C-alpha cells in the first residue's frame, strides 16, 4: 500500500494543494493590533495576524474538551452570559457549545464539522497541545478563525489567548515578600497537578521571585492537585510536621488550605492563592486577624476574551498571534461582598470575571442565572 513511489509524486501534488491552502487564512502583518490594552501581545516579538473582513453577525462554536469540574461548567455558563451582553449580542448570530470529552479525535472531528457547517469562529480548549495541523489547515482554507485558550497549542499558526502562568506564580511571590516584610522565613508552597505545564510554569515563576539573590526563604513543597480536599490534607500534614509557616502560596484549593490552617490553630499568616469564592470569604472575615490574602487566577472568563478576540479578528482587525490577558484578581484590601466575592454563592465559584482593560465584566448573577440552553 505504501511503497517507495509514495514519496516522489507527492511533492508535486501535495505541494500544489498546500500552496493553494497557504494563500487563504490570516496574513502576517506588523503591529500594533486592535485594542492593545486588552489584546496584549505575549512578547514584543509576537507576530500579528489579519484575516479578511467578514460581514457580521457571526456564528461562533465553542468546542470544549473535558467537562465535569466547576471551572469548566462556569466557563460554559460564562460564554452564554457573555453572548447575551449588550455590545456583543449584535455581533453573534448563533453560539453553539459542545464538550467532546478527552478524545482528541472527537475534538478534531467536532471542529472540522463546524468548519463544514460554515461557522465563522471556533473557540476551543485543546485536549492535546499537538495534533491540530489538519484542522488549522482546513480553517485557514475556509477563513475560519480558530482560537484556542487556557490549554493552548504548541504552534504559532493560530491566534491563542492565555494568562501568563509564570506571572501567576511570580505575583504571589512578590505579595508574600511584601506582606511578610522581611526576606527570610518558612514558606509553604502547595503545588498543582504534577506533570502539567501550568503547574510547572507557576512553580518556576514563584521560585524565581522567592529565590532571587538576597532572599533566604526556606520553602516546603507539597502537592495539592488544585483540589480543596487534597490541598487541605497535605497542608494539615505539613503544619503537623513543620510547625509554623510565615506565608503560604497555593496554586489551587486555597479554601481547603485556609481551613486546614484554622483547624490546626495555626496563626493567620499571609496567603497567596487562587480566585475561589470560599477563600475570599475567609479572607474578608479574618483579614483583621492577620489572614492577608492575595487572590488571583486563571479565570473561566477567558472564554469571553477569546470570543471577543475572535469577533475582532473577523472584523478584519490585526490581532497578536499569542494574546496575554492581564491577570485578574485582588487582595484583602479590595474585597467587597457582592462585588468581587459573594457570601451567598458556593465556595468553589471562581470570582475573577472582570477584565477592566477589555471592558469585559460578567457578574456572578449573570453567570449563575444562565441555564444550560444550547443556543441563544
Amino acid at each position, binding site marked *: 500500500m*505504501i*511503497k*517507495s*513511489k*509514495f*514519496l*516522489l*509524486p*507527492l511533492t508535486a*501534488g*501535495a505541494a500544489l*494543494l*498546500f500552496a493553494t491552502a497557504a494563500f487563504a487564512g490570516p496574513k502576517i502583518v506588523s503591529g500594533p493590533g486592535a485594542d492593545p490594552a486588552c489584546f496584549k501581545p505575549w512578547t514584543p516579538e509576537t507576530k500579528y495576524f489579519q484575516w479578511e473582513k467578514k460581514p457580521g453577525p457571526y456564528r461562533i*462554536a465553542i468546542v*470544549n474538551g*473535558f*467537562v465535569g469540574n466547576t471551572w469548566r*461548567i462556569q466557563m*460554559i455558563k460564562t460564554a452564554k452570559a457573555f453572548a447575551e451582553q449588550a455590545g456583543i449580542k449584535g455581533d453573534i448570530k448563533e453560539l*453553539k*457549545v*459542545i*464538550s*467532546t*470529552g*478527552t*478524545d*482528541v*479525535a*472527537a475534538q*478534531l*472531528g*467536532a471542529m*472540522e*464539522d*463546524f468548519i*463544514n*457547517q*460554515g461557522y465563522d469562529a471556533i473557540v476551543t480548549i485543546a*485536549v*492535546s*497541545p*499537538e*495534533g*491540530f*495541523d*489538519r484542522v488549522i489547515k482546513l480553517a485557514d482554507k475556509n477563513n475560519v478563525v480558530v482560537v484556542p485558550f487556557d490549554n493552548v497549542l*504548541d504552534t504559532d499558526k493560530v491566534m491563542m489567548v492565555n494568562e501568563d502562568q509564570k506571572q501567576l506564580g511570580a505575583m504571589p511571590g512578590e505579595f508574600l515578600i511584601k506582606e511578610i516584610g522581611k526576606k527570610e522565613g518558612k514558606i509553604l508552597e502547595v503545588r498543582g497537578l504534577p506533570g502539567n505545564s501550568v503547574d510547572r510554569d507557576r512553580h518556576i515563576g514563584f521560585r524565581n521571585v522567592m529565590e532571587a539573590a538576597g532572599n533566604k526563604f526556606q520553602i516546603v513543597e507539597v502537592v495539592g492537585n488544585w483540589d480543596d480536599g487534597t490541598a487541605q490534607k497535605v497542608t494539615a500534614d505539613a503544619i503537623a510536621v513543620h510547625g509554623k509557616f510565615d506565608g503560604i502560596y497555593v496554586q489551587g484549593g486555597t479554601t481547603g488550605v485556609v481551613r486546614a490552617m484554622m483547624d490546626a490553630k495555626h496563626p493567620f499568616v499571609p496567603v497567596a492563592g487562587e480566585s475561589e469564592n470560599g477563600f475570599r470569604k475567609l479572607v474578608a472575615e479574618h483579614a483583621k486577624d492577620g489572614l492577608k490574602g492575595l487572590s488571583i487566577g486563571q479565570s473561566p472568563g477567558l472564554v469571553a476574551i477569546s470570543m471577543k478576540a475572535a469577533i475582532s479578528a473577523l472584523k478584519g482587525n490585526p490581532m497578536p498571534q499569542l494574546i496575554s490577558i492581564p491577570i485578574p484578581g485582588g487582595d484583602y484590601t479590595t474585597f467587597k461582598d457582592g462585588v468581587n466575592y459573594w457570601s451567598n454563592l458556593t465556595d468553589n465559584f471562581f470570582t475573577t470575571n472582570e477584565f477592566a482593560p477589555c471592558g469585559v465584566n460578567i457578574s456572578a448573577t449573570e453567570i449563575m442565572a444562565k*441555564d*444550560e*440552553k*444550547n*443556543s441563544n
Partner: protein
Amino acid sequence: MSATKSSDLGLRLRQNMGFAIAVVLFAVVYFLYQLSHPKGFSSQVFVQNSNEVFSLAMLAMAQTVPVLMGGLDLSVGAVMTLVDCLASHVLEGSGWSIFGGIVLCLLTGAAAGLVNGCVVVFGRIQPIIATLATGAIYMGLALFLRPIPGGKINEDINWAMTNSLADFAETVGIFDDGKAPWFQTIAGFPTSLVFLIVVASVIWIPFRRSVTGRTVYAIGSAEGAAFMSGLNIERGKLAAFTLAGIFAGIGGIFMAIQTSSGNADIPMAGAYTLSSIASVVIGGTSLLGGTGGAIGSIFGTLILKVISFNFRIFDIAPLLQPLFEGLVLLGAVSLGALSILRVKNQLELFR
C-alpha cells in the same frame, strides 16, 4: 424454495437481532444528521465523520475478539496509545522507511496482544486482571516513548489518509493522479472508510471463518465443550488476544497519522477502552461470549459517535449532552435485550 429462503432470512435476523437493531438505529440517526447538516451528503462531511470514527472502530473490533471468547481486554486503549507514540517516531521519513515503520507498529501491536494472551493462557490469570496490569505497562512504555506530546508524521501520509480517495490517488500518484474518468464515481469516498472496510474484510472475515476463529466462538460459548471437541483452546486464546493487539495497533497508527503526533494521554486511553466495550455491546456481541462479531461492533461505534454528531447540529444544552447520550445508549442496549422476552426456556437466560 423461496419460502425456505425467507424463513432462512428470518432465522438469521432473529439470531442477529442486536446487530440488526444497531444497523437500523445508526441509519436513522445518521440520516437525520446528514439531512440537517448545511453540507449534508457531501464528501467533506463523510470524510470528517469517518476520520473521527476510524480509531475507535478499530478498538471496537479489537475488543470484540476477547469478548467473543468470554473475556475483556482492558489494555486496548493502552496498546493504541503505545503504537501511536511509536508511530510518531517512525513515520516521519519517507518511502521504505515509512513502510518499515508501519510494519514495526503492526508488529508492536501484535506483540502487545500476544503478551496479553501469554499472561492469560500460561499465567492462568483472568483476562480482565491480566490486561489491566499489562495495559499499565504499555502505558508506561508509551510515556517513555513520548514523555510530552510531540513527534512528526510524514505530511503526505497525513494528507492522503485523512481525505477523500481523490486526494489519496493524487498524493500516491495512481489512477492518473486521481483524474481517471472511471475513478470519479468513487473519488469522493473517504480514504479512512475504505481502509476500515479493507481491514474488516481482509483480516476479520477470513479469521472468523478459520478453525481458530470458530474456536474463539466455541470457547466463549462453552469452553469445556470446546476442549472436549478437540479444539486447540490455547491457540484460540493466543490468537484472539494477538488479533486484538493488531487491531488496536492499526487504530494507533491512524491516531498518529490523524494528529501528526504522538501523545501518551492516559485519560484518553481509558476513555477509548471504555468506549470500545460500549461499542461491542451496542453492536450486539454478548459480554458472556459466543455470539456477535466485529462488524456489529463497528456499527456500535458508529452509533456511539453519531449521537454526539447530532449535538453539533441540534440545540441540546451542553451540560445535558452526556445525560442525553447515556439515555440513547441505554435505549439501544435495551432494544437488543428485548429478545429475552421471547425466550421459551428460562435456562437459556443463564447462558
